[in-house]
């Protein structure tokens, strides 16, 4: 394949993670605007407490000192971006991975639960979709339950799941993965139900004229037709599974994981630590979605450049 066709294929991809030359500039521009707003907000939000402290000191101060102080508080209301960046650096690159304060360690704990939940949720979502598409009774009986399952606040149900599973001896990764799966199966199931029903009547009639079996119709028509619905579902699911894993760490007082960092940060007013954990979670999600986009791109290439 020539570079030219590769390039056109890449442009045709409507993935949210295209880092081509044409997207770097707009992304950077938005980033700059956000940073400016963030720094201004930090001045506004941290200002009152800085004023208080400076007045208590009794020394006269100018605006530059005031602004610098709002961006350098130990426990700011809103930490400045460079404080978060420094905290991230200190807790990832500067810390050994096995340290209790390493965000790499905590990130890995959360990510492993999230990925286990993602795989579980994806399998469950696909199996449910296959059942719903092929069995009329399941279509009528399951769909309302699936929708209802997502209206229950996960924050309310997560502690129950942890307690119930803890009672039967399941702790650590398993309850977290199950809560992740609880969130992530939904977009996959929904997408796949639509995707497996995507073939038009002619495409289905064609299979009938070949007297194809149900399995053949599934393998050669329904499944490939569902691919363009699977990947968007997977991307939402992987982000949700991270959310699920973090939420699962909150009510149990977990000792490790990004959720535990958020929790201990809020106990001790360590806002910088909270924000660093949040940024870490975002980095993980973006990376996971990026990996899925790469796989999707491979599938698209194998299918002649269109999904």
């Amino acid at each position, binding site marked *: 394949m020539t570079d030219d066709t590769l390039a056109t294929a890449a442009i045709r991809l409507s993935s949210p993670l295209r880092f081509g030359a044409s997207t770097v500039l707009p992304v950077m521009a938005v980033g700059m605007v956000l940073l400016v707003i963030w720094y201004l907000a930090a001045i506004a939000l941290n200002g009152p407490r800085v004023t208080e402290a400076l007045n208590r000191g009794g020394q006269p101060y100018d605006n530059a000192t005031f602004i610098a102080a709002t961006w350098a508080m130990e426990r700011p209301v809103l930490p400045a971006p460079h404080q978060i960046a420094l905290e991230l650096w200190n807790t990832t690159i500067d810390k050994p991975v096995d340290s209790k304060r390493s965000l790499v360690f905590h990130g890995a704990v959360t990510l492993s639960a999230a990925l286990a939940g993602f795989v579980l949720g994806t399998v469950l979502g696909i199996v449910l979709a296959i059942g719903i598409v092929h069995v009329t009774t399941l279509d009528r009986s399951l769909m309302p339950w699936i929708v209802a399952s997502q209206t229950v606040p996960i924050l309310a149900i997560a502690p129950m799941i942890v307690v119930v599973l803890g009672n039967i001896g399941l702790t650590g990764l398993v309850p977290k993965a199950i809560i992740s799966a609880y969130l992530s199966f939904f977009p996959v199931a929904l997408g796949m139900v639509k995707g497996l029903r995507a073939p*038009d009547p*002619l*495409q289905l*009639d*064609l*299979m*009938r*004229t*070949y*007297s*194809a079996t149900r399995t*053949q119709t599934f393998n*050669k*028509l329904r499944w*490939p*037709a569902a*691919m363009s619905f699977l990947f968007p579902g997977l991307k939402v699911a992987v982000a949700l599974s991270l959310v699920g894993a973090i939420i699962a760490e909150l009510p149990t007082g977990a000792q490790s994981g990004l959720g535990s960092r958020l929790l201990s940060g809020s106990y001790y007013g360590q806002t910088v630590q909270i924000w660093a954990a949040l940024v870490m979670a975002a980095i993980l999600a973006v990376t996971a979605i990026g990996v899925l986009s790469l796989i999707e791109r491979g599938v698209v290439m194998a*299918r*002649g*450049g*269109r*999904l």
Partner: protein
Amino acid sequence: MTPSAAPSTLGTRQHAASPSPKRTPVVEATDLGLVFQSGKQPITALSAVNLTIRRGDFVSLIGPSGCGKTTLLRAIADLVKPTSGMLRINGSTAEQARLDRCYGYVFQAPALYPWRSIERNVMLPLEIMGKSRPERLERAQRYLALVGLESFGGKFPWQLSGGMQQRASIARALSFEPDLLLMDEPFGALDEITRDNLNVHLLRLWAKTGITVIFVTHSIPEAVFLSSRIVVMSPRPGRILEVIDSDLPPDRDLDSRETPEFLAIAHRVRVALRAGHSYD
């Protein structure tokens, strides 16, 4: 008919005009009726259809839109079940014929699978029928060449024009070498120039393979140009008004459409269609 198909003694065009008892019937419909039970009141799509189609025939079903010609074709293909009468395909039931993969079906739209290359689309029925990979490749190449698409096997459907897509779908229907080719207004969505071109193509293909073709159309020139027999159907409920045998020379081309013989047959078809309309 070309000499290549002649030794079969079946399906020669000379016999088409005067049916010989030697030729076995492929399709026999007796008092066939079909009522759709959808909606508030049942719709009678077919009523008392009697039709025999013999091996090697090129039969066109012609009639106004909604007259049930597609329904008749779908009944022959066992895509819908008749509600009365009897339908035999190759001496067995329509369902058995479908299970035996007796026919290839060409739909109004190409219905190619967009994620498969043209070659892999043509190989699809062969995969389902469990043919070996070398055989699938050989047949795909052979039938793509037959429809003039030998150099497009690696392309994907969206890279081909509508006419080429429909040719690919014909290659797909022929690839497993069925007895019978069922075509449901295959060129209806194409422009007239492409359509003429494909008509010539199809006529040559029929001559080369000697396959039995049932062809649904609402174009009189197309029906007369292609067919050895033209079945004229009435508006709903679909009945057969007249079966017109055509004895145009086998080597006819597009210019033949201006000959008096062609125009005479076209006129008969037109009169029969008009008679159908005066029924209601």
